[in-house]
């Protein structure tokens, strides 16, 4: 397990642009970190909108895109998180870092406050 590990949970409408695995691979090389990507899709088209009932679901089961970043080197990890926030904006919910380790979460949350744009 890497020293710094974070899961960034982007829900529908959160990322500023489409998250493409190819782009993530580029960022992985650029920052010298390990990046994973998982897409969970549970929406159905109803009334012209992609809809989903999420109220009683586990967070991990609702539609989302999860970018995982891990590294043993703090600087690489931080730079990568910053790069992801710049490209996609930072995740927006209070539970968007669920599944991260403490060290990774601390950095990712700190960067949200300074680079999140709010």
């Amino acid at each position, binding site marked *: 397990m890497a020293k710094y590990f974070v899961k960034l949970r982007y*829900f*529908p*409408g*959160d990322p*500023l642009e489409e998250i493409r695995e190819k782009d993530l691979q580029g960022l992985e090389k650029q920052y010298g970190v390990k990046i994973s990507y998982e897409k969970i899709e549970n929406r159905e088209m109803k009334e012209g*909108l992609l*809809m*989903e009932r*999420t*109220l*009683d*679901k*586990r*967070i991990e089961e*609702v*539609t*989302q895109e999860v970018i995982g970043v891990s590294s043993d080197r703090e600087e690489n990890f931080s730079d990568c998180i910053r790069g992801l926030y*710049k490209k996609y904006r930072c995740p*927006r*919910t*209070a*539970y968007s870092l*669920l599944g991260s380790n403490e060290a990774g979460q601390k950095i990712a949350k700190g960067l949200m406050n*300074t*680079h*999140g*744009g*709010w």
Partner: protein
Amino acid sequence: MKVLALNGSFRKGGNTEILLKQALMGAESQGATVEILRLTDYRIGPCRGCGLCLFRENVCQVQDDDVSLIFSKVDESDGVILGAPCYFLELTAVVKQLIDRCWILGHKIGKIRKPATVIVPYATRGWIPYVFVQSNILLNVMGLTKINEAAICTQGISEVVLDPEAMELAYGMGKEIAAAIREKDFTYKGEPGICPSCHDWHVRILRDHETVECPMCGVRGKLSVSDGKIRVQFEEKAWADSRFRPDVQYNHFTYHIAPSKDYFLRTKEERKARTQKYREYLAK
């Protein structure tokens, strides 16, 4: 055709009431039936933040006040004129109190088509920066489409009657809203602001020092200066992010709010342990 005026001023016979009545006379001249509610005559309790309107599908826990009556009046109308004075940089507290209670209307945002116009009497030029921010929020959360807005400089009680241009403007805005209802034309007739959607003049500089945002709509753009003029360019695709679009609202409720129940429940024991000292602190 019914036009409803919501009066956010406590003062009877004050400038807000006079301007609203003048606007209603204008609407009436176009065949509208009219009604005015002084919001401070009604009990508008604070939102209790219980979240039941969000988690139990549109049930407001606050049943002992008049907010549902106010909402039903808005529902019955075909158009709304909002009037409220500016006492301290923004609109009066009753407007904000009503905004906070509008969570229950979240499912209507962007889905109903009803025009609204805004009249704000104020005393000192340059002391009104946030008035149209609040009116924009209220109209948007009520699902209304703003077709015009006006800030009118006037001070003492009823002094606005000494300003024929202001009175003419208000009358015209009343006629205008009646025409908008009749012709189903809700295009914005006021002065265009920086944001082409909400027509406000605010921009917020984001922390990257590169991007600006319309704080009302949440749409990002770029600031530039050409010929000594400050401009903001919003990219076409950025409008997909506009806060008051029905799909954006849907995503907000579905993914930012509803799943928080799961987080809330799974952290119950930890929260209970960590909050013990706060329950005991200053409890007597």
